């Protein structure tokens, strides 16, 4: 009899099932799930059937009785919540291990125009940080380099795998451009307190980008290439549309310039990462169909004048302006903080988004912007079985407790070093007589 009905033990583990790339199960049926599809829909008492790597069935466990015999395994998710795997775009996860230790930082290459630099190959699947992120339900990330004007090429990755090759969901998905800073075009150095000089300097930085795009466009259209240029070659797919161009920028002037720039070069998939001022030009963004990966929700307002809760409210403002957006988490300690992306989304539910809208902003919307929504981002029939089950609502800190999860139909490892240490030292205390507190 190869049919089993599992009653799940609460705790961390699910360890009997947690190892990489376990031998594929033929078919699994999850029943009685509180299903958050990721596309905005919720379904109580859902039955979700997985065959191989794909979701084959979504029905109501209550109204449509499933035949137990049809499934190799049936898992009852009563009172539990099922979510598509969360997505952390624009992250250095796997490229850094200890922020302060230079030898562990692999995300910032020398050079100004580096489209040929590929984050993918430095991605460390065994990163201990990744394990802690995965065990909070974040299953997909866009691994992105930093530094320079064109920082390099990102890739969309699974947060589990044997090596970068099999972890890749979308190899080299896009090129990242740090748009020159409107106020400090010379990055870092404070410009002279002269408005005209500053503007001049901003314009000249813009020209450099324009020149690079013009030249690489010509290169990519050229029939006779006599001398190979790896940088220009790496830009080719951007013009053809198979690679996205991600513009990192926040200021109003920058955003308007990026809209023009994208039109000028006929870019098919421009994306703005940041877009702090996007709420001021919603119609322009909507009309030009440029999506925005908003700044980290948990960040301070840029200026003393800004409303204190502006970063919390940006998602709602973009929703109202009908601009496509998702959340990302760039900033201080971004790698380790990727595990909190559910709570960033959760926070916006106090500021205008519904729970399902907030979820969409870290699942389906992200996948749409990354161009992987055909297979990922929501729990729908025909999509990859990439999801997790939480004991309670996953966007709230108190109830986010990931019990199990799958990536492309394979069970994922939910253990991490932090849990090991927790167990180790809990055991220490359990096995020793309690020390009494000294009287003060």
């Amino acid at each position, binding site marked *: 009899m190869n049919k089993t009905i599992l009653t799940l033990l609460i705790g961390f583990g699910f360890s009997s099932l947690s190892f990489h790339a376990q031998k594929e199960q033929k078919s699994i049926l999850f029943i009685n799930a509180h299903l958050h599809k990721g596309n905005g829909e919720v379904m109580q008492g859902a039955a979700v059937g997985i065959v191989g790597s794909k979701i084959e069935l979504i029905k109501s466990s209550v109204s449509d009785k499933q035949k137990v015999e049809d499934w190799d395994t049936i898992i009852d998710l009563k009172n539990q919540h099922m979510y598509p795997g969360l997505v952390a775009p624009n992250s250095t996860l796997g490229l850094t291990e200890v922020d302060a230790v230079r030898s562990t930082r692999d995300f910032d290459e020398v050079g100004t125009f580096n489209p040929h630099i590929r984050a993918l190959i430095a991605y460390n699947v065994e990163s201990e940080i990744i394990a802690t992120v995965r065990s909070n339900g974040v299953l997909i990330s866009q691994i992105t380099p930093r530094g320079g004007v064109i920082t390099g090429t990102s890739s969309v990755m699974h947060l589990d795998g044997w090596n970068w090759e099999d972890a890749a969901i979308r190899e080299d998905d896009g090129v990242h451009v740090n748009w020159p800073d409107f106020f*400090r075009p010379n990055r870092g150095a404070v410009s002279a307190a002269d408005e005209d000089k500053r503007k001049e300097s901003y314009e000249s930085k813009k020209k450099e980008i324009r020149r690079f795009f013009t030249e690489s466009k010509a290169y990519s259209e050229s029939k006779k290439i006599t001398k190979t240029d790896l940088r220009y070659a790496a830009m080719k797919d951007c013009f053809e549309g198979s690679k996205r161009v991600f513009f990192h920028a926040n200021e109003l002037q920058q955003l308007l310039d990026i809209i023009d720039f994208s039109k000028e070069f006929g870019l098919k998939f421009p994306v703005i990462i940041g877009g702090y001022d996007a709420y001021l030009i919603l119609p322009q963004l909507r009309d030009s169909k440029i999506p925005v990966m908003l700044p980290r929700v948990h960040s301070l307002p840029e200026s003393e004048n800004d409303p204190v809760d502006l970063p919390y409210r940006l998602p709602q403002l973009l929703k109202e302006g009908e601009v496509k957006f998702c959340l990302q988490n760039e900033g*201080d300690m971004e790698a380790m903080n990727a595990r909190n992306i559910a709570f960033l989304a959760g926070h916006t*539910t106090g500021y205008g988004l519904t729970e399902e809208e907030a979820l969409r902003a870290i699942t389906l919307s992200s996948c749409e912007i990354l161009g992987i929504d055909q297979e990922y981002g929501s729990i729908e029939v025909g999509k990859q079985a990439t999801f997790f089950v939480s004991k309670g609502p996953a966007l709230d800190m*108190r109830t986010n407790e990931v019990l199990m999860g799958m990536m492309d139909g394979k069970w994922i490892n939910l253990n991490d070093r932090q849990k090991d240490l*927790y167990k180790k030292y809990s055991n220490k205390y359990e096995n020793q007589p309690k020390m009494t507190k000294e009287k003060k």
Partner: protein
Amino acid sequence: MKKFAWIVFLLPSILFGQITHPNNGVADSKPEYYAIRNVKVIVSPTETIDKATILVKNGRIEEVGKFVMIPKGIVEYDYSGKTILPAFIDLNASIGMPELKSTPYSFRPQMGSKTPGSYYWNESIHPEFSAGKEYVVSTDDNKKYREMGFGAVLTHLNDGVAQGSGAFVLLENDVYQSVLHSKMATFYSFDKGISKQDYPSSQMGSIALIRQAFYDAEWYKNAKDQTVDLSLESLNENWDLPKFFSVEENYEVFRAKKIADEFKTEFVFLGAGDEYAIAKDLKDLKAKVVVSLNFPNAYDVHDPYVSRQIPLTQLQKWELAPYNAKYLADFSVPFCLSANGVKSSDDFWKNVKKMMETGVKQEDVLAALTINPAKWMGIDKDFGTIEKGKIANFTVYDNNPFESKSQVLEAWVKGIAYEINSKQEIDIRGKYNLVIDGKSVPIEIKGTVAKPEGTVVLNPNERDKKTDCFIELSNNDVVIQFSSDNSNWQGSVNLKGKFNSRMAIFEGSGQLPNGKWVIWSGIRNDRPEKDEPKKKFEVGELKPLVTFPMGAYGNEKRPSSQKILINNATVWTNGSNGKMEKSSVLIANGKIAQVGRNLSSDGAQVIDGTGMHITPGIIDEHSHIAISKGVNEGGQTVTAEVSIADVVDPSDINIYRQLSGGVTAAQLLHGSANAIGGQSALIKLKWGETPEGMLITNAPKFIKCALGENVKQANWGDFNTVRFPQTRMGVEQVFYDGFTRAREYEKQKETGNYRKDLELEILLEILKSERFITCHSYVQSEINMLMHVADSMGFKVNTFTHILEGYKVADKMAAHGAGGSTFADWWAYKFEVKDAIPYNAAMMQEQGVVVAINSDDAEMGRRLNQEAAKTVKYGGLSEEDALKLVTLNPAKLLRLDDRMGSIENGKDADVVLWSDHPLSVNARAEITIVDGIIYFDRKSQNEIHERDNAERARILSKMLEANKKGEKKEGFIKKGNKHFHCNTMGEEGTENENQH
């Protein structure tokens, strides 16, 4: 005033006319006896004499008045129409001082002083500098000041913390005649100036340094067998001179005042220009201020994308600078005015005009430039007014400069006239018929007396066609040139001649286009038209909004405590009543008056809390917001002498932002750059209070210590490998050494013969358990180590902060009695947090440690409730216990739990009204109350935001006007969000992170 009055006796009575230096050539016999007649004399701020006569003899005023007999044989001037003012005095000048030369920058630390000689150990303490000894005449500076109307200044070297003494000098170009008093006052600041020595690296370090130097000087007076310290000697020698303190922002006044009180002395403040914001406080402090006339430039605001980014604070600084004196005058704060930093006399008078347009009275302005400085310095016997017997320092203007646009004509310094703008006495304006070579040419001369402009009529048939002609006038010499195209002459006619003003005729000769020299003349037919009366300065109606603090979201007045009743909410008491459903909280007199159901409102403001939650205010055990100029005094390994409480900045916008996250109190900790850092400030988030008003009264004393990577400078790059310690092994010895020295100091103290050491005083407090340690720590070895140090020295470590490996030694911590204040889930930012786990808080709690969750981060400080909620996920704490991690437990760790941390009768009314379950991810703090005062109300947030926007728009349009008028402007430099972290060095915050 009394304090300085006796200075008068110190000053030698100033006699002129006798010189000690040899003269090259025969003795000079300049006339030294003058009479100035028919002049309007503004004798003093309150007395003006029209058509007066002044007699000046040997540099002094012999007589002034309406009816003065002019002795025969003296030089007489008729100054009718002109106005004479007493020469101004600037107490804040830095002219004729040596050029400041800084040593080149080095990546390596500089621990000791590089000043040669037997001086104080710190380069920025150089009280021995004497402006009188170093003074050289700078004719350019003298000229600039005289052009503004000054006659004498108190000059000093503006460098360092103890800057030395200043000299009172006349703006006289002969150095032998300039210095009237070589040591008139001493000068101080919080800025270490050109010193490259590591210490002090923060404002609180400067504060401690001045205090220590003052204590050292006191001790040095009677110290036996002590080697010479020339700096301390100078401090003592000059102690009784008036002391000036130069501030860079208004809150520094409070800081300096505290030092003055400690040493029973007084400072006169050299203001920063933003004293308007604390005008009332200045009055209460009885402070005297030298107000700067150097106003900030306008920003270039023609691009709205740029101007929208300029913070309100910056706009206000520009607009309010001219109002500074007005606010001080309104609160009767005594002030003088200074031209320090003003570039030219044009700027000076422009700014005086701007200031007067705010409504400062003429007599107040004049007093602030003349008699006030003279009185403050005790030299009003000789200076400040134009009165009999005083030194003849006065300035001649063509009009009263306080009433209308005027020109400075002459500056009289000690009876010697320096001409500034020549007086054009002769008025040639009018209509003439010139006769040139027998031909008649009508000419009309208009313009001003000094700069006449003319037109000629070349064709008698076309009287309306006027041709411009060039006129140059110097006394009664006149040049007239015009181009002719009439039948008489083709080309340039060049005339030169003299004007006879009695007859009103020109006579002279000139050259015609054909080269022929001819005679010409002209007779005036019409008198010049009368000058239009000059426009008087107008006083503007508007007095801009001053808020507490200045900038966005400021309170229009300092809010006061109210009686408040919040009804029908879920109350998390943290006390024996636990969580109370559908209950009310009554607040009165800043305290919790009652908690329960059906409370009577009894005149209280009633807030409906239906469906909402009330918790005690969040207390952030580890915060670095609201700190001025440096969170780390990293200049030395042990800096117990410095205190964050000295540098609280109530204007930090993060105070308001954190109120919006329910924070009501915080421990502002020194950073972790050294093993024994500085003392903490325990504050309440009373937005807009004074620095002192932010501090929790009678709070227990705390100090920051630190262990690990920051202390050993592990992540500071390859150059910082000099300062001890560089290993954890060394860190232990720093503590043993410090506490051992403190014990020895205690013994020394008992003998009565000791030098007060601020650092050891504080260490001694720790040993006596009068001050408690919050220690930055990460790994278990060092945590263990410090507990051993404490045990062996007989005290307890009160709190370990960060304490990310606390879970490994929680049992030992509980046994020792140490608490732990940690992060919910941070890790991976440096090597020593490799073993950090989010279960830490719950595990420590389980072992009986008092645990708090803190922010150490201005951003995270706004959502500590959410961070606390993570312990439900990681480690399974109950919700009530989780909430205590950010309320009651930090209160316990700060030993404030008798007044804060729970909602119980009699406790401080620090409460938060939440929109939802306080640990839920969507809960918003709707109202935050501190000491019974509503400091944040989400509903009024929008209103205040709109008020600020309107205020910004108003000032921006004013600034745009200034741009258009061509006033000086500069580009706006946007600064990112700058914050202090544990590891931030220097006085500026950093945009970089990963520093905890």
